[in-house]
């Protein structure tokens, strides 16, 4: 619980960061839209360092676009995507055997039947809704989402999901300094992911994935599908559920893909709307 509260605080800072990025980065996309030219606004050459001062209309409009989803609790209506029956049919409630159980997963379990752990689907539904809502907000603000899963059975599926959403995936061997040593690994001035989604928190040798610890170190929020043998402590949005069945994995991938697409479409819609609104009075 505590970890989630601290992240609300960083969300505001993230919003500020996203705002700045929006101001600098969204210009090219907006310039394409007809009728939304920020009147008389000249772009300086590469020689000058300081970006041109933003116009007052711009900041108001971007503010409105970014603050609108935060007014309602379920702006993207993710609760419609998740239903208990669907989770049950996809066998999400099946955990591992009693011997594999992790101590910290006990609050999320409904019970144990013939040595098999059953995950409480009511809690899963709540956690999944929170997680999907969070991804939708991140995708709406143009954040980078990284899908991680070290399960070889679903590596291809996860990569395809990421490609379809327009987000990123990493289902291969995790080199030590990918997040913590980003500037040297990738190049100076790289942008690290704003959200990491672990579709399976364990790696090939049934130990906790290094990415969870690295994400916590780099202050990157993480969502993770935790099975009954996983450790949910370092994740910001743990989602208790089965991570070994193909049906369950396909369900998760479908859900994440739908939320991200929904959020991105909503963003484009908002920008178009605001563009039309602001040029309305100017045209006179």
């Amino acid at each position, binding site marked *: 619980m505590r970890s989630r509260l601290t992240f609300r605080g960083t969300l505001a800072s993230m919003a500020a960061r996203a705002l700045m990025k929006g101001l600098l980065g969204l210009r090219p996309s907006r310039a394409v839209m007809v009728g939304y030219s920020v009147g008389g606004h000249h772009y300086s050459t590469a020689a000058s360092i300081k970006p041109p001062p933003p116009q007052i209309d711009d900041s108001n409009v971007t503010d409105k676009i970014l603050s609108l989803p935060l007014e309602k609790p379920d702006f993207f209506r993710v609760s419609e995507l998740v239903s208990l029956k669907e989770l049950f049919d996809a066998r999400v409630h099946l955990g591992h055997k009693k011997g594999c159980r992790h101590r910290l997963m006990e609050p999320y379990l409904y019970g144990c039947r013939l040595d098999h752990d059953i995950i409480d689907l009511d809690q899963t539904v709540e956690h999944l809704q929170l997680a999907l809502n969070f991804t939708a907000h991140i995708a709406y603000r*143009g954040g980078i989402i*990284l899908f991680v899963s070290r399960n070889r059975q679903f590596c*291809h599926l996860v*990569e395809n999901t990421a490609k379809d959403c327009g987000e*990123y*995936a990493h289902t291969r061997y995790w080199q030590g300094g990918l997040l913590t040593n980003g500037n040297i690994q990738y190049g100076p001035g790289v*942008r690290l992911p704003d959200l990491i989604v672990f579709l399976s928190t364990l790696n090939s040798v049934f130990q906790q994935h290094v990415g969870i610890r690295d994400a916590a170190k780099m202050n990157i929020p993480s969502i993770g599908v935790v099975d009954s043998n996983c450790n949910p402590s370092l994740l910001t949005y743990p989602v208790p559920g089965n991570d070994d069945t193909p049906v369950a994995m396909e369900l998760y991938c479908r859900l994440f893909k739908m939320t991200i697409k929904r959020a991105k479409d909503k963003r484009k819609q908002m920008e178009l709307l605001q563009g039309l609104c602001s040029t309305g009075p100017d045209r006179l």
Partner: protein
Amino acid sequence: MEYIKKQVEEFDIGKRHLANMMGEDPENFTQEDIDRSIEYLFPSGLFEKKARPLMKHPDQVFPKQRAIQWGEDRRPFHFLFYTGKQSYYTLMHVSTAGSRKSPSSFQNASSPLLPPRVISYSDRHSLSASRWLKKEELEELLVENISIQDYNRFIQLMESLLSMPYCTIEEEFVLRYRQNLEAQSRKQAMPVLERDERGVAFSTADGRRKTSDSTVTLRDCGSGRITINGRDYLQYFPVLQDREQLMFPLQFMGMLGRFDLECTVSGGGRSSQAGALRLAISRGLLSFLSDGEMENMRQAGLLTPDPRVRERKKPGQKKARKKFTWKKR
């Protein structure tokens, strides 16, 4: 990128200046002409060829580098950017069996009534005449550094792709990662086939082994006589092993009674003379054979000169390899 474009422009201008200086046509000034003129204008006595003055196109001089991987909003272009080795992992992603076209679509395209034909790996001719790309060549292709384990995984994946039925669909994709082997037989130097006054075809060839030199003339007369240094082969080589060495090339080709051999041999011992003669006979036989039979001979090892020579004795040792008795103290 702009730097490289500037370099290319400068190179083009420099090329034209050079052509004018040499008094040649600036339009058709090839790389060989450039090399020639640079060697003439800047003669260098350095032994290392790479240290001499060089004028080449910037694409060949500057190593291939990656352009910046992200756009204005700093989002990376490629979806596998955060793995570190994006082109290698895209290759792996694309070549996994799940992503290749399914056989059902292939079947529907050809004709649904025919039973499915499964073509195995070994039947494919184009695959037998090529080899997998080496690690360095793959690195060059992907512009990325790969580890040995990554390379082995890649080869494993390709082999598993080809071992499945309907591998012909993926053949085109797989051939991109194969390099053609040159047939070694093309490089063989063949002796000339001459004609006698009587019209008999004959050819002469040399052979060497250890310190023996031999010359053999094969005449297409029809008898099986062999003369070495003026004497009969039975007299010259009393040991069966040496005579077998002489016969082996003809026996292999099945032309035992066809040729008349006139040989001269000098130097070496009994066995090395026999070996030299064998090589000379196989070389002489080449002009009477087709390409396929020549390839057979090459694969049998008849055309390879034996490089083994006597190793010298070293000081501090008894013989070439034998050392003096080792004493602990």
